[in-house]
């Protein structure tokens, strides 16, 4: 086949341009570190990368929620521990009060301490969380527990605490409500709350005389109350453990995801550099042979 002069120049030009653009593509892949520059470079990989990046973004948000829930649970746990300590002190005082040999002034002293404990419990019940809201404030917030001037305590209806999203269709309730912690205590004479149990005892103590009947009733009720709070604490602890598991699973998944992303998207630098070297060598050879071929012409020999 005869190669026309024009055709020779044009095809040499096209070949060298193709090699240059191949080299440029490899150069871009090496310098950006990314194998894919546009979705059309690899449609399937693009779709997977989108899913991976969305999952990563979701997990970032969920991780922040988990961290917040974790610290709310920690705070709930330590507050509940303080409440348990207070209840145990009340139990001790109840045992003390349950003595026939106790003097009226002794009973008075116990009553005074019990009233102080009620104040402490009120403060604990109204403690603020890291978000600036009442820790046991449910969905309403405000003050979940009101200490009335007459010394009685009202537990307000605050609604249920909001569940925090911590994963795809996964939520955790990071606190308890005051109603859950202090109320709902089943005794022989119906449902009551911790403050009523204590105030029943203080009223008996203030009235003077033997309080053995009131004290033994309070002792039974306090045991139930303590179990009630301990249950709540155990539940908080279990939720915390679940979050710890979830959090470490998330870290593992993030590592797997990063490996996947890298294998889909990142340039294999060794291979890219080898390919670039190969392309450059071929380009140089093409340029050299082009120069040689163009310097050859029959006209050079016509003298």
């Amino acid at each position: 086949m005869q190669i026309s002069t024009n055709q020779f120049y044009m095809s040499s030009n096209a070949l060298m341009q193709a090699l240059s653009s191949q080299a440029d593509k490899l150069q871009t892949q090496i310098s950006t570190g990314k194998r894919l520059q546009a979705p059309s470079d690899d449609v399937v990989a693009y779709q997977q990368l989108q899913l991976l990046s969305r999952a990563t973004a979701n997990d970032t948000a969920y991780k922040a929620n988990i961290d917040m829930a974790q610290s709310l649970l920690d705070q709930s746990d330590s507050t509940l521990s303080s409440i348990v300590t207070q209840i145990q002190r009340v139990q001790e005082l109840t045992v003390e009060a349950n003595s026939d040999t106790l003097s009226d002034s002794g009973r008075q002293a116990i009553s005074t301490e019990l009233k102080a404990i009620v104040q402490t419990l009120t403060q604990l019940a109204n403690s603020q969380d890291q978000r600036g809201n009442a820790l046991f404030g449910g969905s309403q917030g405000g003050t979940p527990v009101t200490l009335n001037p007459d010394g009685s305590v009202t537990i307000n209806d605050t609604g249920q605490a909001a569940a925090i999203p911590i994963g795809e269709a996964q939520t955790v309730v990071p606190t308890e409500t005051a109603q859950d912690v202090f109320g709902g205590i089943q005794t022989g004479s119906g449902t009551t709350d911790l403050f009523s149990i204590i105030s029943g005892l203080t009223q008996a103590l203030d009235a003077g005389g033997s309080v053995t009947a009131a004290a033994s009733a309070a002792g039974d009720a306090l045991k139930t109350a303590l179990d009630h709070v301990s249950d709540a604490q155990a539940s908080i602890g279990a939720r915390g453990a679940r979050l710890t598991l979830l959090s470490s699973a998330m870290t593992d998944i993030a590592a797997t995801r990063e490996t996947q992303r890298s294998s889909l998207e990142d340039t294999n630098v060794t291979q890219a550099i080898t390919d670039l070297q190969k392309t450059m060598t071929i380009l140089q050879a093409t340029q050299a042979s082009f120069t040689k071929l163009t310097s050859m012409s029959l006209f050079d020999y016509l003298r």
Partner: protein
Amino acid sequence: MSDILNIGASGIRAYQNAIGTVSENIANAGVEGYSKRTTVINEVSASTSTITRREVTAASGVTTSGILRLVDPFKEAAVRAAGADLAASDSAIQWLNQIQAALTGNRLADQLTSFFNAANSVAADPSAAAPRTTMFDAAEGAAGAFRATGNALDQVAANLDASAQDSATTFNGLAAALAKVNDGLSRNVPNTNGSAQLLDQRDQLLEQMSAIANVSVTTDEVGRATVRIGSSSGPVIVQGNSAGALSYDRGNDGAVAYAVHFGGNITTAQISGGALAGIADGALRLAEAQNQLGAVAGAFVDGVNGVQATGIDLDGNPGAAMFAIGGDGAADVEMVLASPRGIAAAAPGGGPLDNGNLANLAALRTSAGYEGEVTQLVTDSAAALAAKQTIADAQATIHDNAIADRDSVSGVSLDSEAVDLLRFQQAYSASSRVIQTARDIFQSILDIR
């Protein structure tokens, strides 16, 4: 003796012509569309013939019977067809690339993800200002991404229209030029340099026309081309010295229609090759992308507003609409919520710390899958683009081969021209030696005393 002189003189004339043609070839070796020419040289024989016998009585030299253009019409047609196919793919790729850039440039899916994740952060602390502000800004970002993506697609549509009009105008210019060439051919003597020039122009015009729209060509005995758009049964655009005009129109549904105006008639044209076919391809894909994006935008706006309506905001009021969408689809999405306090995080009856309604938003995200739909939109168009690129690579090879095939016949090779030059130069010198010999012989007779 006078015969020898005449024969020598005819050789001089013929080889002068031949050298002239070779020089012409050499001079035009680099010219686009130039076909190699040869001088056809024939022996002149004075013969007497009867029915049964043809007798050559005397040789009378050589004559130039014409200038031949070395072309193969089938190879020309193959180059045109391959060029039309390649141009269609190249132009489709250009538009699909623009659509892809418009769909991915504003990171719509990422913005939607940010919006839903910001809602998750609000759920963790529903009464705090900071997460609400973040979600408010993310909502503005999502609305902005819809607008920007919609606008980018609208811009592609505008570019596509302008480009199609330009191409049609160029095509009509080429058709008019071809009609002039046809006119020239009907007045030119065949097998001359002049007609060869016109035929070169004709073939070049046809090649340029096929790069815009595939054409079907027939030629008559003097080389005048009759051009039909599309197949051989398509509407005529050039016939003799009259040329028609091609017009472009894009309907509201995004479908492209081409029509030929010729001699007062308007006929619909089916274009399956050339840049205009690629534009039609791109227009279809563009309309699909616009529709799908509009559908996602509408569903997103309705979905989020629906969730807002089922909740109460931080001030205890029923949730107001967060977004609004106008008649222009995605480009018309607006954020209409007045303040971050307006985000309806709580379910009815819930307090300021409730986040029950945001669970509905998370459920909407999962069930509606807006982000997935946006990604699907991108991958649909990217897959079409990738397929076209593969096809275009193959078509480029076919086109290159067709050109190489054609040029092996019609292209000028300087080396073979050098050989011809030497050959004709020697023949010229020899002819002049014949004249000298004739003079010498004649002189020897004159010298007889």
